[in-house]
């Protein structure tokens, strides 16, 4: 790799001023499985000057249940989340999404903070040496629109003029379905508000800000959650579509439901119409089917990704059905 300056930050107070000083020329590194790929391929118009390691900051690697709120440090490894009995028990969608992320090695290195903050995987964006200086990198156009968009967004582009790359995280939709909050060095926001459709960023984070903790309220008794991922291979691959559902059924009716799809849009996608289609209804196949149809009703597929609509619909239905009490 090309040279850069490296800092092993020992505290948040050491890390933040470094980020502030270098501005857009600094990057934090956690697991490194995304960032090192970005750097080896030199995909960005400007190579990072400084890398700030936050793994050396103590106190950000934990899973604690505390007064009805599950708190997970941003540096907690995905493998630990997948294997945690607490998470599997009450927050199944998160354990499952962590388990389905990448491969064993990726999960032993990758952190939950890194997973939700990771960069997009569009193959034009990721082509080495900035071969396609696209909209996202300050250039003029989205190459996927006129090119091969088989893995791109089915719900249109980003708000400010058309990046069609999808958000690749598996844990993000689970966190949103579980109504999680994301705590950063500056603020705490709801998970669904954490992700941005800005052209050049995938989250609302400022350049000198990073995630420190995830907080998930323990769902009331009788709530179930599910997560499913569709990818070409059963390991290593990023999702083509994934889906997380949180659902509480009682008195034979759906009392509460949260659905989140990802890898279908520039940020995780909550199909509110699908949720509304289930509230107060019986949890059965026809209703789940109707909800699934509603989930993709707004889809505007591109030339090569129409098949994703069908798969997204299928995942929504298949995530709803197992959630009966």
């Amino acid at each position: 790799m090309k040279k850069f300056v490296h800092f092993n930050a020992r505290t948040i107070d050491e890390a933040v001023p470094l980020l502030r000083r270098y501005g857009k020329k600094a990057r934090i590194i956690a697991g490194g499985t995304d960032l090192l790929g970005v750097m080896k391929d030199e995909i960005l118009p400007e190579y990072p000057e400084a890398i700030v390691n936050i793994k050396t900051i103590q106190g950000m690697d934990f899973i604690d249940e505390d007064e009805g709120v599950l708190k997970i440090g941003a540096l907690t490894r995905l493998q630990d989340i997948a294997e945690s009995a607490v998470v599997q028990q009450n927050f199944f969608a998160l354990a499952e999404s962590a388990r389905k992320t990448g491969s064993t090695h990726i999960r032993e290195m990758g952190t939950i903070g890194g997973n939700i903050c990771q960069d997009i995987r569009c193959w034009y964006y990721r082509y080495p040496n900035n071969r396609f200086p696209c909209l996202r990198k300050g250039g003029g156009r989205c190459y996927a629109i006129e090119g091969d968009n088989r893995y791109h967004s089915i719900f249109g582009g980003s708000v400010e003029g058309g990046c069609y790359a999808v958000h690749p995280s598996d844990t993000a939709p689970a966190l949103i379905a579980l109504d999680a909050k994301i705590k950063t060095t500056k603020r705490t926001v709801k998970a669904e508000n954490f992700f941005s459709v800005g052209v050049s960023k995938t989250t609302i984070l400022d350049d000198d800000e990073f995630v420190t903790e995830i907080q998930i309220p323990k769902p009331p008794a009788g709530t179930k959650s599910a997560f499913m991922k569709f990818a070409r291979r059963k390991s290593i691959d990023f999702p083509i579509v994934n889906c997380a559902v949180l659902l509480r059924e009682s008195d034979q009716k759906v009392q509460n439901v949260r659905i989140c799809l990802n890898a279908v849009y520039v940020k995780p996608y909550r199909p509110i119409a699908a949720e509304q289609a289930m509230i107060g209804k019986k949890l059965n196949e026809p209703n789940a089917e109707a909800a699934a149809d509603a989930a993709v009703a707004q889809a505007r597929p591109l030339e090569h990704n129409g098949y994703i609509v069908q798969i997204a619909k299928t995942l929504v239905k298949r995530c709803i059905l197992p959630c009966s009490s």
Partner: protein
Amino acid sequence: MAKKMPGDYERIQTEGMYRIGADVPTIVYREIGKRGVKRIDGYEKASGKALYTRDIQLPGMLYARVLKSPYARAKISRLDTSRAEALDGVRAIIRYDDPEVKGRPLNGSYFGPEWVCPDLAGWALKPVHLVLGDEAWYEGQPLGVAVAADDEETATEALKLIDIEWEQLPFVLDQEEAIKPDAPVLRPGAESNILEDPRTRIEKGDVEKGFQEADKIIEFKAKRRAHLWAGAELPSVVVRWRGDNLEMWVHSQQPYHQKMLLAEWLGIPMNKITVHVPYQGCSFGGRGNPANNSENGMNILASLLSKKTGRPVKFLYDRSETFFGESGDMMVSHFKVGAKNDGTITAVHIKNVFAVYMCTPGIEHLIDNTKIPNLLCESIVADVSIAPAWWCRCEQLPNCFCLTLIFDHVAAELGLDPIEVALRNDGCDGKDTSYLAEYKRQHGFPERDSLRECIEAGKKAIDWDNKWHPPGTKRLPNGKMHGIAFTWDHQWDDVRGTGSAAVMIENDGSVSIIAQHADIGVNPWTTYCQIVADELGVRFDDVNIKPFELDSGFAMMSPDGSCNLVSNGNVVRKAAQKARRMLLELAATKFEDVKPDDLEVKDSMVFVKESPEKKMTIKEIVAKAMPMFDSCVFWTEAPIVAWAWHTQGLWGEALETGRPRLCRQAHFIEIEVDTDTGQIEVTKVVNVNDVGKAISPETVEGQMYGGTYMGLGRALTEELIWDKKTGVLLNRNLLDYKYATMLDVGPIETIIVETGMGHGPYGTTGIGEDTATIIPALLGPAVYNAIGKWIDDFPITPDKVLKALGKA
């Protein structure tokens, strides 16, 4: 294609090199065919001690890289390397217009250097034949500038500092577009994008007559998209000069060819080049094209840079640069088949349009192993703006693709069991199995019906009789559609290859096989030791092979074309037989009143046949048989070293070689299709291969399931994807070019059949390429059986399944 000289077959037959007839065993098999023989390379590979070319480091070594074209079709109009040359740590640069390389082409072809095959130089290479040119014919083509620097990062950085202006030219990616009259012509001076190939039209009998005799005419189209060998080890070469001698460590299947080609290009004699062949991290043919930039070109540039700097140079590619050499089976084909209601096929007409290169035309196996009398194959090879294509496990892909799809379409259309159709049409060159039976009888082969045996074994293993069903009719309890399919072919290759080796009995009685050979994982060395052990009469543990460092002039057949073991088996057998003769002659002098023929060798012991209590260990016999000894205290005896050369035959159709393919193979597959997502799950594969004789059964099984794994990847997930607007190859990495992980492959059952009807030593045939080549197309019939729709567009991805079902 290669032009044989008239009389070649007759000549080698007369000299006794080329045998037609069964190989009647003359020895007792003790190691041959045994299970549990320990792999010679096993410990080194498992412990991390095995060294590959990429691991080699020499003191003072520089790292070299080459510039690549970012455009599919472009010329360099201005090149300024001053910034690169000024970078700290850059030690040498070669530009395309430097005198050492200017205008000089890569030499030779797969078949050898120009002085050996002048009519084939540059074959299969497209106009990309300059070692370092200024014109690109595909995105990613190495050209322009090569740099040697203190480390890899500096070499990479230097390439980025090159100031370069390009003139972009029109390109075309699609082979059907390329042959349209308005397509831009890619080759300078050419009239169209249609490439010459002597196999453009292959005809037997009269297809029109055949169609008239048919009860049914079946027509369909099929498409096979680009895929790649994508090997594990990244290509590299390490070169250093020792005076005017050149020493190199290569990543290559054919190291001997590397030597020849380099000698010719550099103008130095072959006896001044030493080639080391470390362990090879995969090859599959990808490191078996000595004439390409990635091998020949890399070696030449590394040698020049090493000469310029006076230091060893490691020339390397990173992973994104390894996406050269697609398999030569990128084809769009139209089929017209005539068949009778009982499944007898009366005529086949295939029309192909290939991209870049046609490795085989698609009709050849219908000639090799069916009785179909009327065949016509018309192929167009269209030049398109992608890298030169090659033979990647293996060149028979189009032949197997066509055979499987034809047979399974016929069966489906007639409502017949595909096994019936196969058995009904088995034969050779338009003649039925009675011809083959007669051939077996005449030439001393066991008279077994290989296809039937393979089918019976496979049917049982997959429970065909209970599981086969009409298409689109079986939905499983899990909601998925069940599919099951079958295909067959002949087992290749037992009719070609050439090699040489020596067998030496060291003077402690241990035995060395001396020859150079590239190990790409097919466990050949263990097998050669098994053969030598049995032929010589020694214990397996007393035999060893030391192929890396020994650029001894003996070079075994490369692991190519599934004919590696067949050729080298004969080579080591002959050498061992000669060594045995020498041993017995020496041994006879150690006993009283004994002639060599009175002696026998077993378990490294020599004994008198009539009175076995009269024995000596080989060690005792050869105690004084040594190549060199310091003192003159006692009389030393001549060392026991014998060498042999063998040519198994020439490339050609089985009939032309006088050796029709007698062995067959049968493959079965079971799948589940999720009709809501389009995902295909392969739940079971049964491979049945009649290898004639399995010298190392575990190795044979390894090739069977390894090939199936590769075949499934090719069928389902492996595809090279180019951006239509720019001609850029989008998935130049192993995340986006997908081959199966352990979770993606279901159970594969491998069944070895041994009929002894191979033309190789001990009745063997080849195995290395078969399953990888046959399995890909089998997914087509499997999907048809599952959902009742043909998707003859490979790889069969979920979007295609959903489209076929009307859900996308």
